[in-house]
């Protein structure tokens, strides 16, 4: 066994292998930085080359890519408030406020250091665990997965911004949105309204971009400043960030452990691991007052977890041939392509390949983190650019990322619709993270409950791991109930904080309740097994909204609104973004982005036409190059496909 470890090390250090690892890391960093692009897009870029490579080089390239995705996705999360991938949504919560306080470098380097340590711990766990993991992974059946899902949902408590009724209603709304598409048991369509686009469910990328990125863009535009509202305070350089991470080594260790475990259990999906790490970081912190306003721990926890996840996710990928995350799902296909068949024999016959993978993963993590820290001083300067100039690029990136989801018009329409709704949520003090958690866990919640009952009746409650998880959930709910995270607060933005009036709040609450009712009506005539979930969740949403209204009415008036929640300025900025759709329908996607950017930079950015055209051309050039590399056909002038 030891000589296999070292022979793998020999291959690892060969120039050939290192070179290909670097290629993978390079592609991974580019793909990771761009929101909406993940492992799938990265592999699509690499596939033409992987087809011709020898297995060891192909392996190096793929692992290099996989390892750094979760590192590089932090850039947009921190710098722009745009989730770089499903794994770094929670990073936005504190990372972006830090950037707005001028501390982007500190936040980024803390995140990269945490990513590095998390990634190394993930690789370590993989090497120690891979030989004995089989029975442990097999202990997690439907009941255990169900309880893990419930544990994930219990994070809603701490992420509700102190208003847990609205948090629960938002979570229920997320669960209903996650319900869109065919019911798992009978195939009846739910909440699709005969739209083909919705018939395979709402893509996570579209929801995440709409939920977090668009409202932030609209909000920032009305402030007419750079993202960083003040110059970087002293002592907030990259070294401070690394020191922050080392100082919170306990948090790093625990978050990495959460990442490994969630990654190693196939069936939960990696998209919720950052929220669980973030939630537990809040629950266990003594001073919670800064969370949501720019607490460095809020960056460290999810980043350590999402890199460790990839190591953990390789466990089921290699020994069962079952991927533990989106990235490993693609890797699995790639492995088969180069003649490596993951499965039980992998850890007996091909253990040298396993160690090669582990070493590559560790090395790629180190290189990736080093590169990211290296380019941080340069990249973080985007926060100093006047926002009205930066905005067209960000809007272009968001629309491009959303369009990556299924490459349909529906993606563009959905991201705008969700963005509009999310902006209302943001302004009315409704927490958005619970909605996302509900969405991510909706499938598991329904399916695992159904399977648990089908397979075990009510006995599933008595299984040992289930009981442990119930206890953990109870603890989580207890701590969650005691903590308040101002998830909707913006650092340095107190002056624009608004207290929405009673009438708009009532209208919004009633609207959410109406969606709950809609879900019930929609599922009215389908078989009970497919009806149960929308009925229960829809009912719960109505109940939470009702209670919330009751509380609003009983509580003394919150005082007159200091300032209306919405202004014409916001509407104008939103109209800009929405205008992209008809423009795309007429001119096609890239020309539309170009014209939009020129117009926006002229009118909102007050630039001269030459500068505006140059910037617009640069934006389009980047998108075109990406589109070319990914063989994307952008929407052409004619509406070639309507959902």
């Amino acid at each position, binding site marked *: 066994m030891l000589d296999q470890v070292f022979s793998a090390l020999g291959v690892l250090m060969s120039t050939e292998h290192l070179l290909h690892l670097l290629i993978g890391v390079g592609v991974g960093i580019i793909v990771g930085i761009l929101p909406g692009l993940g492992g799938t897009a990265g592999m*699509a870029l690499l596939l033409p080359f992987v087809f011709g490579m020898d297995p060891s080089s192909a392996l190096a390239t793929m692992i290099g890519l996989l390892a750094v995705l979760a590192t590089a996705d932090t850039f947009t999360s921190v710098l722009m408030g745009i989730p770089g991938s499903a794994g770094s949504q929670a990073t936005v919560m504190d990372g972006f406020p830090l950037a707005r306080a001028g501390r982007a470098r500190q936040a980024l380097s803390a995140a990269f250091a945490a990513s590095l340590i998390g990634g190394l711990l993930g690789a370590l766990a993989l090497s120690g665990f891979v030989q004995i993991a089989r029975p442990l992974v097999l202990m997690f059946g439907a009941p255990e997965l169900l309880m893990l899902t419930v544990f994930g949902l219990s994070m809603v408590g701490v992420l509700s911004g102190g208003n847990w009724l609205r948090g629960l209603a938002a979570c229920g709304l997320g669960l209903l949105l996650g319900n869109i598409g065919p019911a*798992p048991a009978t195939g009846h369509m739910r909440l699709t309204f005969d739209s083909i*686009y919705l018939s395979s469910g709402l893509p996570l990328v579209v929801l995440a971009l709409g939920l977090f990125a668009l409202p932030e863009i609209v909000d920032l535009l009305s402030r007419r400043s750079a993202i960083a509202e003040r110059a970087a305070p002293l002592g907030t350089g990259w070294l401070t960030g690394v020191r922050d991470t080392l100082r919170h080594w306990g948090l790093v260790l625990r978050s990495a452990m959460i990442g490994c475990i969630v990654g190693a259990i196939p069936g939960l999906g990696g998209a919720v691991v950052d929220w669980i790490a973030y939630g537990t970081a809040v629950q266990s912190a003594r001073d919670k007052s800064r969370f949501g306003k720019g607490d460095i721990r809020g960056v460290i926890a999810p980043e350590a977890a999402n890199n460790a996840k990839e190591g953990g996710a390789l466990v089921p990928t290699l020994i*069962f041939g079952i991927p533990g995350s989106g990235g490993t799902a693609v890797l699995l296909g790639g492995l088969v392509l180069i003649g490596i068949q993951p499965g039980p024999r992998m850890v007996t016959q091909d253990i040298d390949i396993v160690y090669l993978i582990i070493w590559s993963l560790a090395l790629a993590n180190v290189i990736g983190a080093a590169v990211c820290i290296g380019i941080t001083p340069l990249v973080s300067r985007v926060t100093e650019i006047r926002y009205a100039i930066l905005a067209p690029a960000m809007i272009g990136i968001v629309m491009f990322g959303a369009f990556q989801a299924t490459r349909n018009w529906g993606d563009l329409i959905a991201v705008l619709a969700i963005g509009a709704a999310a902006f209302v949520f943001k302004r009315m003090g409704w927490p958005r993270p619970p909605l996302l958690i509900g969405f991510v866990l909706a499938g598991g919640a329904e399916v695992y409950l159904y399977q648990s009952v089908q397979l075990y009746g009510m006995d599933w409650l008595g299984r040992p791991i289930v009981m442990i998880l119930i206890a953990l959930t109870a603890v989580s709910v207890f701590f969650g109930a005691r903590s308040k995270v101002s998830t909707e607060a913006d650092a340095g933005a107190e002056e624009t904080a608004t207290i929405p009036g009673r009438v708009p709040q009532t209208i919004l609450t009633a609207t959410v309740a109406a969606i709950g009712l809609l879900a019930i009506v929609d599922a009215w005539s389908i078989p009970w097994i497919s009806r149960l979930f929308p009925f229960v969740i829809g009912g719960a949403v109505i109940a939470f909204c009702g209670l919330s209204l009751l509380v609003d009415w009983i509580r003394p008036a919150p005082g007159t609104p200091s300032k209306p929640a919405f202004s014409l300025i916001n509407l104008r900025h939103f109209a800009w973004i929405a205008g992209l759709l008809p423009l795309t329908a007429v001119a096609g996607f890239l020309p539309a982005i170009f014209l939009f950017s020129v117009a926006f930079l002229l009118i909102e950015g007050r630039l001269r036409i030459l500068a505006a055209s140059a910037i617009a051309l640069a934006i389009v050039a980047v998108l075109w190059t990406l589109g070319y590399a990914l063989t994307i056909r952008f929407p052409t002038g004619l509406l070639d496909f309507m959902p």
Partner: protein
Amino acid sequence: MTGMLKTLRTSAQWTASLAVAAALTAVTALPARAADFAGQTIEIIVPASEGGGTDFWGRFYVPVLQTYLPGNPTVVVRNMGGGGHTIGGNFFANNAEPDGMMLLASSGTGHFNYLLGDSRVQYEFKDMVSIAGSPVGGVMYVAGDLGASGPEDIAALEGATLRYGSQGPTSQDLLSFYALEQIGIMAQPIFGMGGRSDARLAFERGDLNIDYQSTFSYLDNVQPMVESGDAVPIFTFGVLNDDGELGRDPAFPDIPHYGEVYEQVNGEPMSGQVEEVYMSFFTAGFGAQKLLSMPASTPADIVDTYNEAMLAAKADPAFQERRAEVLGPYPQFMGPAAERMKQIATSVSPEAKAAVAEWLAERFDATVN
């Protein structure tokens, strides 16, 4: 005066901007058509996202087309996932010209949705022209502790509760449920599986005791369980020869195919509606699980050009070697043979379709959308 000049300059720059926009429109526009493929870009529509089986299969044929088509065209893959493969299929149906410049790489999911008459389907698969096809094998197996020692011992399963993990009654599992029912096994469906690998994991955990896996997955993950006695194969779904007859799977020459087991249990070979339903759905899901097709009215000379290219590829040992590495031990259906497979896959009569729909509703409360 200066104001006037400024306006003039600005409008000139505006014109320049518009020219750039127009140029960009040209970049994204469709390439010109011609009978020769030299310098052309052929597009393969993959109605699934990157990284899945259909995507890999489509990409496998990129270098094949580039090498063997006259003029060595550029071939690109365009992924359009969603809607149970119907979004990509519909896009193809609505946009592909009969000029050989756009192909559809379809797979079992899209074939089934077409066969079942899913309302999302806007493509007439029956009328398309298929030029290449790949089979996939599948082995049905049960848990070792049920007492059956092999295919000849299927009677030992009588009375046992057999739990089968399914992605849904209208997925490819339809064929499993249907085939099992015809040999007297009423498997209890456990729905909500994310895919075949989920079901296999649940089988390994002991939650399920009947399952099928496709060839690669069976060899890598189930064979060890068979060796340790934890799993027992009961039949393969079989393969089709070039004439479209069901035969033993070359990857599992010792395991009888479904037709044999059916005859063993029922005392007579499959016939009538059972045969029609099995052969059609089997071909759509296994026998020709992947198909590369062109639009219905593609002129004969273009179809012939493609067919010649595919047959040339088939005769090339280099292709055969790559094929064995990536697609497994099965012969590919190239040229006219692929078209024959597509005809079998779409041969099910309206009466048999109606019978399947009724059976789905009765047994699973399920509906075809």
